């Protein structure tokens, strides 16, 4: 039995790619397993195979073989490949971002997201099993008519994250920052609402905690949107807020170790991995009650109501920064919350799900 995985795009730091590589470790315990992608970042060339070379890398076909497809943006080539392969298909769903917020900045990308949703709907009858990493995602698949939908927790190796050695120069730079540090980790995309985060931070430093800093870590894949955010930051004179771009693992770890608070203003997440990462690094969290965020956060962070309210958000930031007992309660709850996402439990559950359809 061989179980291969297919993605549209493999790039470093991408949640779907990370999840596929993590899953491969597990699947290789069962049989041959490779990760194939249509577009591969050069840094991953030795880890991920080209989809066009699928026939060269697979073993002879057997009726028990499974193909795991991580659904994301629309891609006709990948879609026709998935549709035509004889292997039984398991769909893995991490959510597809809503297209509408992208329209003003990148209409072509909005089109790809929309196509991704259409492909997702069209694969309904092809899939023998659908795995979603949150109930929110599972509900979307059930809505689309998928029959066998199960929630399978993401495999997040918290111990590995904690063992990443922070980059010394970055640690030195971060240690020079005086005052509390707020951290946001996520791509600079409209549905993650970095604009609302900047508004809340503006309220925070203007009226409540003047010496606070905000570090925003994540790639900017919409240049027009990133420029607008940078201009907004400058016009609000927020010298203490900075866009840190995408970071290497050691630099990323240094940021989590320095952070006093993780904040997200996002209004659409299929899971929100940085919450788990914050729990792993004993960083208290604030986020808004949208999509899968409440079920990921549980009671381990400050869950703000869904409305756009930069003042309430800033007050919550000030409260967590200023109340030591609240902070230690949140940190303790975060550690406890990690038990729900225990990677060994997640691995075992995932294997059970896959083997049940073999």
């Amino acid at each position, binding site marked *: 039995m061989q179980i291969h995985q297919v993605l549209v795009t493999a790039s470093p730091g991408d949640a779907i790619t990370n999840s596929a590589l993590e899953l491969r470790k597990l699947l290789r315990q069962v049989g041959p397993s490779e990760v194939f992608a249509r577009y591969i970042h050069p840094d991953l060339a030795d880890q991920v195979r080209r989809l066009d070379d699928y026939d060269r890398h697979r073993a002879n076909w057997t009726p028990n073989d499974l193909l795991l497809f991580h659904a994301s943006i629309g891609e006709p080539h990948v879609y026709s490949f998935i549709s035509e392969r004889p292997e039984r298909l398991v769909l893995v769903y991490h959510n597809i971002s809503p297209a509408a917020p992208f329209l*003003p900045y990148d209409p072509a990308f909005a089109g790809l997201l929309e196509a991704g949703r259409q492909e997702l709907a069209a694969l309904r009858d092809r899939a023998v099993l659908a795995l979603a990493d949150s109930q929110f995602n599972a509900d979307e698949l059930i809505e689309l008519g998928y029959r066998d939908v199960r929630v399978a927790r993401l495999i997040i190796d918290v111990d590995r994250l904690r063992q990443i050695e922070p980059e010394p120069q970055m640690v030195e730079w971060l240690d020079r920052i005086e005052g509390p540090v707020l951290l946001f980790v996520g791509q600079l995309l409209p549905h993650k609402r970095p604009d609302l985060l900047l508004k809340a931070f503006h309220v925070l430093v203007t009226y409540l905690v003047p010496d606070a800093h905000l570090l925003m870590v994540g790639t900017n894949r919409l240049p*027009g*949107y990133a420029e*607008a955010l940078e*201009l*907004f930051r400058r016009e609000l004179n927020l010298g203490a807020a900075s866009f840190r771009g995408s970071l290497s693992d050691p630099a990323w770890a240094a940021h989590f170790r320095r952070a006093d608070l993780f904040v997200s203003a996002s209004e659409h997440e299929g899971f929100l991995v940085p919450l788990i990462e914050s729990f792993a690094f004993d960083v208290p969290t604030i986020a808004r009650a949208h999509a899968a965020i409440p079920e990921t956060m549980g*009671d381990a962070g400050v*869950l703000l109501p869904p409305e756009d309210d930069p003042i309430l958000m800033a*007050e919550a930031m000030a409260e967590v920064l200023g109340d030591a007992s609240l902070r230690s309660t949140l940190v303790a709850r975060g550690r406890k919350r990690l038990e729900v996402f225990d990677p060994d439990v997640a691995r075992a559950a995932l294997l059970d799900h896959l083997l049940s359809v073999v």
Partner: protein
Amino acid sequence: MDSPTAIDDLIKRLRDRVEERRGRGLYPADLEADLDAHFERIAAHRPSPYDYDQLRQRLSELDEAMGFSPAHIVYESGLPGGTALHRSIGKMVSRQTAGILEQMHRYAEAMRDVLREVVVVLEHPNSHVHAELLGQVDGIVERLADFERLPADSIVGLADLRRRLERLEAAEAARRFEPWYPNERFEDEFRGSRSELLARYDDLAARFDGCDPVVDLGCGRGEFLELLGKRGIAATGVELDPELVKAGMARGLEVIHGDAVEWLAGAPSGSLGGIALVQVIEHLTAGDRADVVRLAAEKLRPGGRILIETVNPQSLYVFSHAFYADPTHDKPVHPAYLDFLLKEAGFGQIAIEWRSLPSPDESLEPVDTNAERVNRILFGPQDYAIIATR
């Protein structure tokens, strides 16, 4: 904080605190709306999201993908005997396959051509053109806003500005003309000697008998003032050229240094008995000519007189002799126009006197009526005086 509901309590406490701080005025009332509007303004002005290079790259990929051919059909199969089966099916339907491929090719070519055109159309009216146009529109809007800020009586204000501008231009022209010779020498040479002028204007001075006080606007060397004085008429002169003012004062005349039209505008209404403009009106701008007549009607008392003496544009002789000999002459003024202006300003008893006939030696012998007609046109009176009563 021990239970999940404690988070709800915390949110409630934070909400109450926000309300309390709003009540105290800590947060400005429009803070959120201002922040939202600020970001929306920036987002609306972001650069074009289109990457045309990428679009062209995709187009060339489309070209490469267009090689539709039965040879690209893959017959391999994982099933035993599948490949041979697919091949024979392929052969059986090859005619139909070729037909479909041909139709697809025609469709794809047409589609590619349309896309190429669309890329060109999209790319060319690009953001820099838009930015330039928007910049121009901004400029126009700003200028419009300037006009809108003008007070309600701006039309009156603009008319006043126009008049001042004309006067400034005239004054500037006069100021620039500063000959190195004394004006008095020029007057001697071209207008005649003092005694000649005294003889020439004696009859005109008599028209102001009983019209005290008289003002002579643009009095020059002051001969007309002298004549008025001899007749016992109280008279004042206004003259722009300071040298001529000094010369007049030296002869015991009352001469004021200044602009004639401005001086008249400042005189009290109904305060004058007579106003004289002797060889002056042809030096004024069109605006000042009209204004000086209107002002005269205002400043003269009822029964007061105005006398305007100037060159006669109906005589062609004038243009070959006197008029263009003076470099400061602007335009000759037609008697019909002065007649019109005076009537419009409310003057009555308007009379025109023709003066300074050219020497008979210069005109044609009046041998017949034709010669007389030509003489009237070519050798008509060089000056005229128009006299009107308020």
